[in-house]
């Protein structure tokens, strides 16, 4: 009878609905992390593995966070022997495929953190996809 307790009912409901909601969302994120920077630095980078679980393309169009003044989708490319960052206004995820944001490639450029971030701190970054899907993603600051 204890299982009928309202708290448990809510918990069970939450546990069953939450994965279902993200499944329906069609995009999942793994291994999301932010590189800790030396003190006082205003530019950080976020990395993650995005997976499109649907059979149609999903397009990442924007990212934002309450912790940073701005978040942009960037890619480091090496051209003419020079590394440069290129702003990507959107990124298409192929159906049933993964796209990895990793050092030296795609990354979220995180500008002007509103508080000092140290290894272990959790940060939420919201990813917005075409069609209105918004995904709040927990990132971990790592050294």
């Amino acid at each position, binding site marked *: 009878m204890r299982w009928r307790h309202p708290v448990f009912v809510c918990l069970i409901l939450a546990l069953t609905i939450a994965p279902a909601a993200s499944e329906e969302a069609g995009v999942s994120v793994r291994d999301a992390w932010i*590189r800790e*920077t*030396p*003190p*006082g*630095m*205003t*530019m*950080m*980078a976020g990395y993650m593995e995005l997976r499109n679980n649907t059979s149609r393309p999903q397009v990442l169009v924007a990212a934002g966070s309450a912790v940073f003044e701005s978040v942009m989708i*960037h890619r*480091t490319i*090496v051209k*003419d*022997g*020079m*590394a*440069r*960052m290129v702003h990507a206004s959107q990124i298409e995820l192929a159906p049933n495929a993964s796209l990895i944001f990793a*050092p*030296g490639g795609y*990354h979220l*450029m*995180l*500008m002007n953190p509103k508080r000092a971030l140290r290894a272990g701190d959790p940060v939420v970054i919201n990813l917005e996809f075409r069609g209105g899907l918004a995904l709040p993603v927990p990132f971990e600051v790592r050294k």
Partner: protein
Amino acid sequence: MQQTALKFSIMMTAVALAAMLAGVWLADIYRKHDSRAVLLPDQVITLFPDPKPLTAFALTDHKNRVFDLASLKGKWSFLFFGFTHCPDICPTTLAVLARARDNIAKNTVGADGIQFVFISVDPNRDTAGKLGQYVDYFDTTFLGVTGDNAQIGNLAGQLGAAYQVAIKPGMENYPVYHSAAVFLMDPRARYHAVFTPPHDAETISRRFKVVRELEAGNAT
């Protein structure tokens, strides 16, 4: 049992073949005693069989000390160009170099006589204080170095390290493009080798061990 033995002999043959190939490959590299660059087939390091001696340059380190040609002498120096407002490639590379240094320090020869130098191509924003704070975070032995545009250009030019600061008046966050390579100077202040990105700490420390041993062999 028989299958295991077969697997083992195939493995041993493969190892022997790889060793032979590596031998042929290294012999070939050291036979070519011209100044052309040799990119080893693993695409990680380019070795110069006839390293180019650097000429005079004058920069300043994060403790406001002169960093010039004499600062390179008697030490192996790993040089990396970048800027502190760089969110991705610079911290990634410096973290890799810090790990590479740890690996080298664990080696029997150790990390004495080796320096890691981060050269900022953005002196406009990277003051000595800021550079010190930045490099210290990755490794307290790292040097942060910068100077005026002419002097940065002097050293970068000698190494063929391309960079461009796309500064525009009134622009707070301007883009900076820079070489992503790690340049290795030998203790005679000669441009000895260059590591090509993407960088990996284990590869850098392993390759450096070989380069240092070869050079020690050459010197005696």
